[in-house]
């Protein structure tokens, strides 16, 4: 049985997406780039169009966006406190981007950008930089570095840094950074593998649409939510006193 693991979509709705291309001797994964920008453009155009015509008696689209913004406003305020508003746009945008990236695969011919490991890795770099930079900004560099030597020794009321705990803390930070993108990628890619393998086993009868809905909509929504929540939690841990 010949199972292609990243199947070519049956048709390409848009031209110029013939797999990898070589510009400046770098490999570009064109579907990933294309669909990432497609989602970014969709989000930007829709939210800008709604923002330009805000009404007291909202339209359906405005109501939907207000629901999402309101939910994330509550979430960030409840876990980041009074600084929550500042991180609302960051967390909400990550959620919307990852969510649309995950569920866009249920449209025939569309490919999830998150199926490519590079997209979650890029998002991870963004999240880690934001978390650590805001940690340094809120607590100051001295206190930020001191966190890595916690818990230290207390000798006669003086705090002595513990040099043996620092490597563990640093490895813990690296582990957080590695597990964040691989969780998203593993879930989406594993779902894609299961869809392909089971569809071949069942000769595409009956089950594949339900698999698509389960792995695309259900798992995709949960993983997007988890990614945004973990981004927020890392930031909250970094800026907590």
């Amino acid at each position, binding site marked *: 049985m010949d199972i292609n693991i990243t199947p070519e979509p049956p048709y390409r709705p848009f031209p110029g997406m013939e797999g990898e291309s070589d510009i400046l001797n770098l490999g570009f994964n064109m579907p990933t780039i294309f669909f990432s920008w497609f989602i970014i453009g969709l989000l930007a155009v829709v939210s800008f169009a709604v923002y330009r015509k805000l009404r007291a008696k909202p339209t359906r689209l405005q109501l939907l966006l207000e629901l999402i913004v309101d939910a994330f406003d509550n979430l960030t305020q409840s876990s980041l406190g009074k600084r929550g508003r500042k991180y609302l746009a960051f967390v909400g945008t990550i959620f919307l981007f990852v969510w649309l990236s995950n569920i866009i695969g249920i449209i025939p011919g569309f490919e999830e950008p998150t199926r490519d490991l590079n997209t979650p890795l890029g998002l991870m770099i963004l999240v880690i930089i934001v978390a650590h930079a805001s940690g340094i900004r809120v607590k100051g560099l001295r206190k930020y570095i001191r966190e890595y030597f916690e818990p230290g020794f207390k000798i006669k009321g003086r705090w002595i840094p513990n040099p043996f705990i620092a490597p563990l803390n640093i490895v813990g930070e690296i582990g957080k950074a590695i597990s964040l993108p691989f969780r998203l990628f593993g879930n989406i890619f594993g779902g894609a593998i299961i869809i392909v393998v089971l569809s071949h086993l069942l000769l595409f009868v009956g089950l594949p649409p339900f698999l698509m809905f389960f792995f695309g909509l259900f798992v995709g929504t949960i993983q997007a939510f988890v990614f945004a*929540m973990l981004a927020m939690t890392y930031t909250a841990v970094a800026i907590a006193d």
Partner: protein
Amino acid sequence: MAAETELADAITKAAQFIGAGIAMGFGAIGPGVGEGFAAGKACEGISRRPEEQSLITRTMLVGQAVSESTGIYSLVVAILLIFVV
């Protein structure tokens, strides 16, 4: 000579698939038990305080996602064994 290389390739291939299966099978035990435990505890919590349902569900999902990491690592190892090695 050619037969030996073929045999070595076949053994490598078999070892890859067996290794991927073992990695995925054993790696799935921990997250399965752990996530089920978290979900059960969340159910208990919701039955005790139904008004806190949304907070409990949210916390449960994040905790499950973190405890899922080891399963995801084994999935990545299995994928590497099958497709990359």
